[in-house]
C-alpha cells in the first residue's frame, strides 16, 4: 500500500489522464465529501458573516457559536415529511433537484486544485465546465414547471431568461482567457490545467494580461457568475420578497436542501473557474519573482499559519465565552475545536518544514500538493466571501434590468474585449 501511494504521489498526471481508475474514484469521493463539507461550512459562514454585517450574532445556540447549526439543519430537513403537491408532475418534480445537484457536482471533475490534483485533465475542460454548469439552470426551470404553481413558474421563467442573457457574455469572457493561453506556446488550450500552466509560463495571471483587457474579461465573468448561480443581486429566480421562494416554493425537506446544496456547490464551482482562468489557479503569489528556497518555505508555511489563526480565533472565543455553567458544554466543545484546529496547524507546519527540500521525497510532494490546494481554496474562499458581501450590500435588480445589462452592456463589452485580445495578442507575439 505505501508503495502504491508513493507511486501515485510521484505521478505528475491527474488520475483521469494517467488512467488510474482507483485514484480517480478516490478523488471523486474526496471531492464529493469535501464539497459537501464546504457547503455546510459556507452555510454557517454565510449566516455568521451576514449576521455580522447586519449587527446581529447569527446562529449561537446549536454548538459553540452555532458551529453545529448546519448539521442540525441537515438533520431537520432530512427528517421532514416528503411533500409532493398533488397537482405536480410527480416524476419531473422528483428529478429536478437531482439535475441541479448532478450538474453542480459534475463540474468538479475538471476543476484543477493542482497540476495533478484533479480528477481529470480533459482537453476540452473549459467547454465541459461551461456546458455542465449551465445545465444546472435546467433543474431550476424544470422544478418551476413541475410544481404546477404560479410563483415557481414565474421563478423558472426568470431563471431561463437570466441564463440566456448571461451565458453569452460569460462564454465570450472565457474565450478571451482561452485566447491568452496561445500567447507564448502558439497553441492555445481548453484544458483547465493547461490554462493555469499557461499563466505560469507567461509569468502573469490572466487578470493582469494586456491590462485592462484581462481585468475587463474577469469582471464580466465575475458578474455573470453571480447571475449564473442566482445569487444577490441577481437572485430574482428565488426573490423572496417577490415570489415567496421562486422556483422552490413547493419544495420542502430533503428536496429543498438538495437545491440549496446545488446552489452552493455551483457557487464554489464557478468561483473555481474564475480562479483557474484569471487568478493563477493553484499558483502561490509571485512564484517566478520570489522563487528562492527561503521564499518557498515561507509560502509553504501559509496553510499552517492559517490554521494557527483559526485556532487562535476559536481559542479567543473559548476564553470570551460567558462563565455561566449553562455554557460549560459549549465551552468544552469550542476548546476541543480549537485544539483540533491547532493540531491541524501543527501537522501542516511539520509537513511544510519536513518537505522544504525540492527533491521528490514523499514529504516534499505532499508539501507541494498542500500548497497547491491551499492557494486554490484560498482564492475561491475570497470569492465566497464576496458572494456574501454582495448579498449584504445590494438591493435586487429587476428582471428586465438584468436582461438589459446582460445584452446591452456586458455582451458588447465582452465582444470588444475578445476582439481586442485577439488583436493585441497577434501584435505582441
Amino acid at each position, binding site marked *: 500500500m505505501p508503495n502504491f501511494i508513493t507511486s501515485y504521489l510521484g505521478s505528475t498526471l491527474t488520475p483521469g489522464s494517467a488512467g488510474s481508475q482507483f485514484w480517480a474514484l478516490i478523488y471523486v469521493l474526496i471531492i464529493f465529501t469535501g464539497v459537501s463539507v464546504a457547503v455546510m461550512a459556507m452555510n454557517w459562514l454565510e449566516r455568521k458573516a451576514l449576521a455580522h454585517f447586519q449587527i446581529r450574532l447569527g446562529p449561537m445556540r446549536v454548538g459553540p457559536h452555532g458551529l453545529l447549526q448546519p448539521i442540525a439543519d441537515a438533520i431537520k430537513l432530512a427528517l421532514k415529511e416528503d411533500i409532493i403537491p398533488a397537482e405536480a408532475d410527480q416524476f419531473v418534480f422528483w428529478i429536478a433537484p437531482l439535475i441541479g445537484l448532478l450538474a453542480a457536482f459534475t463540474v468538479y471533475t475538471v476543476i484543477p486544485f493542482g497540476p495533478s490534483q484533479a480528477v481529470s485533465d480533459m482537453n476540452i475542460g473549459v467547454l465541459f465546465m461551461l456546458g455542465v454548469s449551465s445545465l444546472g439552470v435546467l433543474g431550476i426551470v424544470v422544478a418551476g414547471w413541475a410544481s404546477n404553481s404560479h410563483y415557481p413558474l414565474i421563478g423558472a421563467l426568470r431563471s431561463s431568461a437570466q441564463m440566456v442573457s448571461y451565458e453569452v457574455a460569460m462564454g465570450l469572457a472565457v474565450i478571451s482567457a482561452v485566447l491568452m493561453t496561445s500567447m507564448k506556446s502558439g497553441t492555445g488550450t481548453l484544458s483547465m490545467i493547461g490554462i493555469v500552466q499557461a499563466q505560469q509560463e507567461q509569468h502573469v495571471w490572466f487578470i493582469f494580461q494586456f491590462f485592462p483587457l484581462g481585468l475587463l474579461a474577469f469582471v464580466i465573468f465575475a458578474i455573470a457568475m453571480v447571475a449564473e448561480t442566482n445569487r444577490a*443581486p441577481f437572485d*430574482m429566480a428565488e426573490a423572496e*420578497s417577490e*415570489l415567496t421562494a421562486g422556483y422552490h416554493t413547493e419544495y420542502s425537506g430533503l428536496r429543498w436542501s438538495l437545491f440549496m446544496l446545488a446552489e452552493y456547490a455551483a457557487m464554489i464551482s464557478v468561483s473555481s473557474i474564475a480562479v483557474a482562468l484569471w487568478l493563477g489557479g493553484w499558483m502561490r503569489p509571485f512564484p517566478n519573482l520570489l522563487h528562492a528556497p527561503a521564499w518557498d518555505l515561507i509560502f509553504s508555511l501559509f496553510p499552517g499559519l492559517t490554521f494557527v489563526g483559526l485556532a487562535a480565533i476559536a481559542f479567543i472565543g473559548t476564553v470570551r465565552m460567558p462563565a455561566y455553567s449553562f455554557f460549560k458544554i459549549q465551552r468544552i466543545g469550542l476548546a476541543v475545536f480549537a485544539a483540533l484546529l491547532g493540531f491541524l496547524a501543527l501537522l501542516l507546519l511539520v509537513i511544510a518544514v519536513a518537505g522544504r527540500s525540492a527533491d521528490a521525497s514523499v514529504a516534499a510532494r505532499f508539501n507541494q500538493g498542500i500548497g497547491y490546494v491551499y492557494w486554490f481554496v484560498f482564492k475561491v474562499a475570497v470569492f465566497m466571501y464576496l458572494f456574501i458581501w454582495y448579498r449584504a450590500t*445590494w438591493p*435586487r435588480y*429587476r428582471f428586465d434590468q438584468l436582461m438589459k445589462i446582460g445584452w446591452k452592456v456586458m455582451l458588447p463589452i465582452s465582444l470588444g474585449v475578445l476582439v481586442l485580445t485577439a488583436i493585441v495578442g497577434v501584435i505582441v507575439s
Partner: protein
Amino acid sequence: MSVHGNDRTNDVSNLELETPETPYLDANELIINMGPQHPATHGVLRVILKLDGEKVLGTECVIGYLHRGVEKIAENRTYTMFNPYVDRMDYVAAVSNGLGYCEAVEKLMNVEAPPRAQYIRVILTELNRMASHQLWLGTHALDIGAMTPLFYTFRDREEILKIFERYCGARLTTHAFRIGGCQYETYAGFERDVKNFLTFVAPKIDEYEELLTTNRIWLERTKNVGVISAADAVALGVTGPVLRASGVQWDLRKAQPYAAYSKFDFEIPTGENGDTYDRYLVRMAEMRQSLRIIEQAVNTIPEGPIMGKVPKVIKPPVGEIYHSIEAPKGELGYFIVSDGSTQPYRLRVRPPSFVNLQALDVMVRGLLVADVIAVIGTLDIVLGEVDR
C-alpha cells in the same frame, strides 16, 4: 379598481382590464394571488394580480383580514376606554393615533391641553414619526432586496422605543396621551435622553443614505417606478409623503397647525416626479425635519401642568367633530358624533394607509411584478390601519 371587502373570492371577471393590443398573443393571462400570506405585502394584504408574463395588467386589493371592528368598538366604550384601542390601528405609529384621537375629543369638549403637554406630545409624536419612517425604510429596502438597512434602522428605532418605554412603560402601543393632556410627567433625564438620541441618530440617517441614495441598483429599482401625478394623487385623496413626493406641498402640521406645531420652524420636503425614489427622498428629508422639530421642542419646553381641566367622566356635548393630524403615513382623521353620553354615538376613522392603498392600481399598471412589491413598500401601509 378598488379596495373591496373580504367577501370577494377569486372572481376577477369585473376587474377593469385593458384588452391587449395584440389579442392573438393573448394566450393565457396569469392571475395570481399575492398575499394574504406573502413576505412583502406588509401584513395580510391580498392583491389579486392579473399578469401578462410579468407585466401587471390590473390589480385588485382584497382587504379585511385584520378587521377588528375598531369603529364599532368605539360605540360601546367610553371616550377614555376607547383611547388605547386607537394605538392598535397603526401600530407602528401608535403615538400619532393617540394624539389624533385625544385632540379630536378635546376639540369636541372645547378644552385644550396645557402648553407643556402640547410640547411633550410634539416630541413624542415626532419621535414616533422617525420610528415609523425607519421601519418603513427597513422593510421597503428589504422588499427591494437590500437586507442590511432593515437591521440598521431597527437598531436606531430601538433607541426611540427605549425612550417611550421609560416615559410610559410601553414600547409599541404606548397609550401615551390622555384626553386633556398627558398622564405622565416626563421622567428625570427625559430631555437628556432625547438630546442624546438626536446626536446619535443624525449620522445614522447619513448611514442609511450612504447605503441607498446613490446606489445604482436602488436608483434603477425606484426611479420612474410607481409614478403618480399630483392631479391623480389629489383626486384619489392620497396624503402624506406619497402626496408630497408628487409635488403637492400639503402638510397638516403647516396647513392646519395642531398641538404646538405652529411654534416650530421646519420645512415641508416635496418631490417632483412622484416616483418611488422621490417618496424615498421625501421621507428621508422628513426624518431630518423631525429631528429639527424635536430639537426646538426639547430646548423650549415650558414648565407647567400637563393635564387640562377635564372632568373625571368625559361627557362631550351633543355635536360632531372632524379633526385630522399629519400622521407619518398621511392625514389621519377622526370624525366623532356625540349624543351627549359617555360613549361616542359614532366614530369614524380616516386612515391614511387605507386611502393611499387606493393609489396602488394606478401606480402599478403596466409595471412588473417586482415593482408591485416596491410600490406596496413605498406606500407605507399598515394593515392594522387599513382594516381597522
